[in-house]
């Protein structure tokens, strides 16, 4: 484990500890209407104490509305929101045990950094000196030691975010709500803050609820992710399960890249579904990898991730199955190369060409292949997901 690595988040022990934790936020049948617009359509979810939970979805899917109903900034049309077992119906935002990091950070421009961080301590019974010490400690926690007397309008984006975090965490909320907190930062800064947020969450042990449209961010940071479309939760799972076994084509498309080939279902046993797909032939798909198709789909399809299959070096042997094809396109990324390969016979049922994308890590000694050369693709039935 390097210093950059936040640690084994997805170990079995961590998952077991999470599964046993008591519920912190319980949302039951929550509906939200804005006039004619139906923003939340029956949300049910339970977020456990100490969990890093993400609401992921495209803009307009209702994820921010859901976060704001937890914070108390939006009334719900019907349903129940419980925080730590207490019904929040009659509890205004300023009395909820939650604090929020706003997308714009909402740093008070007329106050210094220390005054911002200490804003919520007004009614704290501690002495002035104790509060000042708490502010300094909170600033140190987010890496802004000694910044207290600075004017807040002179801060960079990353520093503003840290101030917003310190200002929320100093109040020791039961739940910290983060509304797209990293979207305003540049890529390097964003990746650094992702790691820092994970560490911080583990250090303080507070339940974090993150709203993001960035699937990579959700995968990196979360214990569990709820993927939302049009005011509904499409799938709720851990990052690995979400990536490896999306329960619908839509989720599969939203999280990373997935290749799809049309499939024909031939038969079904208790453990597997037998299908035929152009370019792959007959395959038995285990029941665990069978998901549902979306209403708009033309018919059943199989999907696989670009890195779940690989290009076989000439003359190499493999225990996996092999499909032949021609390299259509090569995209070189430095650490990775993406190949678009047209599998033999993939024109299949309707004669339409469907090149599949294959991602190969550029390890030492492996040459980048040329466009137009023949290639063998190695794959295994376990890496396929059937959508029907």
């Amino acid at each position, binding site marked *: 484990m390097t210093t950059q690595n936040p640690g084994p988040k997805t170990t079995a022990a961590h998952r077991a500890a999470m599964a046993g934790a008591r519920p912190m936020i319980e949302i039951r049948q929550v509906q939200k209407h804005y006039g004619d617009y139906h923003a939340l359509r029956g949300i049910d979810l339970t977020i456990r104490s100490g969990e890093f939970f993400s609401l992921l979805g495209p803009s307009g899917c209702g994820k921010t509305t859901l976060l704001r109903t937890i914070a108390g900034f939006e009334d719900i049309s019907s349903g129940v929101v419980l925080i730590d077992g207490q019904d929040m119906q009659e509890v205004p935002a*300023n009395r909820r045990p939650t604090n929020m990091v706003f997308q714009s950070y909402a740093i008070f421009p007329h106050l210094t950094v220390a005054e911002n961080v200490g*804003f919520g301590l007004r009614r704290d019974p501690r002495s002035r000196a104790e509060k000042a010490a708490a502010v300094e400690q909170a600033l140190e926690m987010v890496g802004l030691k000694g910044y207290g007397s600075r004017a807040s309008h002179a801060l960079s984006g990353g520093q503003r975010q840290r101030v917003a975090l310190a200002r929320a965490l100093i109040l020791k909320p039961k739940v910290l709500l983060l509304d797209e907190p990293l979207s305003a930062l540049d890529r390097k800064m964003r990746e650094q803050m992702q790691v820092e947020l994970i560490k911080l969450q583990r250090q303080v042990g507070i339940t974090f609820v993150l709203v993001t449209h960035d699937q990579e961010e959700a995968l990196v940071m979360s214990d569990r992710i709820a993927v939302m479309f049009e005011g509904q939760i499409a799938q709720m799972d851990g990052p690995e399960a979400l990536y490896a076994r999306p329960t619908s084509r839509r989720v599969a498309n939203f999280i990373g890249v997935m290749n799809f080939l049309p499939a024909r279902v031939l038969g079904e046993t208790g453990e597997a579904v037998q299908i035929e797909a152009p370019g792959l032939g007959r395959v038995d798909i285990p029941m665990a990898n069978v998901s549902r198709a979306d209403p708009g789909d033309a018919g059943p399809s199989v999907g696989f991730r670009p890195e779940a299959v690989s290009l076989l070096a000439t003359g190499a042997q493999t225990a996996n199955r092999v499909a032949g094809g021609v390299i259509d396109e090569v995209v070189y990324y430095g650490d990775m190369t993406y190949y678009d390969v047209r599998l033999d016979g993939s024109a299949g049922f309707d004669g339409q060409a469907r090149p599949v994308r294959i991602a190969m890590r550029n390890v030492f000694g492996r040459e980048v292949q040329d466009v137009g050369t023949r290639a063998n693709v190695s794959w295994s039935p376990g890496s396929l997901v059937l959508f029907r």
Partner: protein
Amino acid sequence: MASGNRSQTAQGLALVAPPLGYAVLVLAAPLLTILAYSFFKDGYLTVVREFTLENYRTVWSDPIFHKIMLRSLGVAALVTLATVVLAFPVAYFLSFAVSPQKKAMWLFLITIPFWTSYLIRVFLWKVILGYNGVINSGLKTLGLIEQPLTFILYNVNAMVITLAHAYAPFAILPIFIALEKIDRSLLEAGRDLGESRAVTFWRVTLPLAMPGVVAAALIVFIPTIGDYVTPALIGGGKIPMIANMIQAQMLDLDNRPMGSALAVTAMLIVAVISLAFVALNRRFLGVRQ
């Protein structure tokens, strides 16, 4: 590069020349003339062009000047206070309660008083507040009073009412703009950090609106000190302010050096008070313009 800069400078000068010339002609030149006059001697109906400080000595030692200057400052301060205190809720309503599509219409409504000349609006207040005015005849018709009320016209209160009404839009607009610039998520952050709406207003909204309040106060304070029409009409000419005193010296008594010295002195006092006001706000409220 240098020639490019020079031609750009020339272009800039050409652009500002007409308004600059106008400003020099109608603002700087009269001001300098007044300044020069204030150091000249008065030779009964003529101006003797000899340097003297006698005018200023007279002004500063004149008890009537002290009284009228203090009254002008007092009336202006009262008008400023009344106007800003009444304008703030209107600006707040405009910024927070009116939907964005309707804001332009509301701003338009607020400017409607400007469609009538200032002089006529002041005169109409006389009609409203007068001995046989709207209020008195109304109350008499209702049988609430037998004799007309006399304390509602020809006094400082009536002047404050008239001036506060005349300057209301000037106070509403800067406060409205300051409120519009406040990021609404700051108010949510205040609530999120445990404060009620009222305390959030006190700790977040009001401090952030202060630049607008300061601007409004100055915009109302400076012209009301020098107001001439309202003391003449609403004050009944019996409670003059500094502008009336200057007018009397300049025209009625034809003592231009003395009138000029009065004008320059009043201008200096207003300038010093305004600068002190801005400095105090910057110092104690952290107001940043």
